[in-house]
């Protein structure tokens, strides 16, 4: 049911863990829905120099977290904003339809972490216009 890519990221997830002195932390999802993703970032000069995640969730939730961290590591915040759920799913050679929400969660986790960074440092990003982590809901 899962692509080899998904299974690879599930069984050998990249960037698992936490960053103690993270500049940005974002957590999305909830246990009721069965998925929680938490992302930690180190950010230097608008560049995401390090990123780690912890995920409670199914195989594809873990795989999407893993690939999402890979896709934004070393990238600028601007570039990270361009990470869509589609891009995450495509990078995994697709996800089963019932699992597409996992890729949405990954996109939101990244955004929420940057939102946290913006809040802490009083920064403005137009990409966060209207975005509020508290509005996110479990969509399935």
């Amino acid at each position, binding site marked *: 049911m899962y692509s080899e890519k998904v299974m690879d990221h599930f*069984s050998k997830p990249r960037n698992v863990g936490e960053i103690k002195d993270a500049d940005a932390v974002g957590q999305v999802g909830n246990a009721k829905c*069965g998925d*929680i993703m938490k992302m930690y970032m180190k950010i230097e000069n608008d560049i995401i120099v390090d990123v780690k995640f*912890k*995920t409670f969730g199914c195989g594809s939730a873990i795989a999407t977290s893993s690939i999402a961290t890979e896709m934004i590591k070393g990238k600028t915040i601007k570039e990270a904003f361009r990470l869509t759920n589609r891009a995450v799913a495509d990078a995994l050679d697709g996800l089963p339809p*019932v699992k597409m929400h996992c890729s949405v969660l990954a996109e939101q986790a990244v955004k929420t972490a940057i939102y946290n960074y913006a809040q802490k440092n009083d920064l403005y990003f137009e990409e966060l216009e209207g975005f509020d982590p508290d509005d996110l809901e479990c969509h*399935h």
Partner: protein
Amino acid sequence: MKRVYLDYAATSPVKDEVLKEMLPYFSDVFGNPSSVYSYARESKKAIDKARDIVATTINAKAKEIYFTGSGSEADNWAIKGVASALKNKGKHIITSKIEHHAVLHTCEYLEREGFEVTYLDVDENGFIDLVDLENSIREDTILISIMYANNEIGTILPIKQIVEIAKRKSVLVHTDAVQVYGNILIDVIDLGVDLLSLSAHKIYGPKGVGALYIKRGTKINSLIYGGAQEMKKRAGTENIAGIIGFAKAAELAIENIEEHATKLKKLRDKLIEEITKTIPHIRLNGDPIKRLPGNVNICFKYIEGEALLLSLDLVGIAASSGSACTSGSLDPSHVLMAIGLTHEIAHGSLRLSIGDFNSEEDIDYVLEKLPEIVQRLRDMSPLYEEVIGGN
């Protein structure tokens, strides 16, 4: 890689003896049993014998056994058939919240058709409250359908007592005994039930065959209309090979039931004890004592069931989470919700169901692999982080 199958409650392989018995009925003895000629007489005789065998295994008469195309069909037939036959008497049905979907979704369908259904609550081990049951029976109650043992958590329900209550109010009782068959001896006379569902593929018989026991004299309409097969109650050219296989599997299962149950219980108890000893933050689901001999169902807190299954699969262990039949869905099992688990915990459930082909080594293998898998997933989990962070 070692391969350990621990999902016997979902389905079992056909035993060699069973397949061997079936083989002549595909191409040699294939005549339509309803026909006059001798080809057909052999098929007819074989089916009559199979019906006898299956009847004997549950202490029923041959004329009370109707072969179906699955356990699900048997459940649908029992409930819709009685509802349709007795709708002028009443339109109220009682069932429980932990029934198999074949019962629950059929009841929901009947609700859309104007019936009323009471879904009884269960306690934390999956038992209905018998007083609650008695109080739910109304003038217009026509059927009580309560499963004999639950497929997910393994709890065995007190059907005999349920029947006693029902009979005082002259209400028919159906029980889904799909998981019980071959694990606990079923005696329909002693139980007193009116209808009882069976399925072949859970007892090392072929898939696509089931049976409904219908006590003599029970009013029931057909689910599948057509030819005069199955004593005019269930149409469709008989699945001869399947029926023969079912009977052989039933025969073997009942012959060895003591031995089988003893072995399974031993492996089950070892699994439960060792897991309990080696892995913290778990919850055993289902009654610890009144439980199917092969059923282990445990919630591992802070992790999610599918990730657990995939990890087990990567080391060759086949198991299930929630119920196999509903794994198309993302919601946690209705059974785990009914016994009062939170979504969070329910998501982390694992069912290991043991069968005839499992050995002690299989169990040891699971006990070797499971702790590290659970730990690995917990180490990835933000929920677990909170817990250990709190220490």
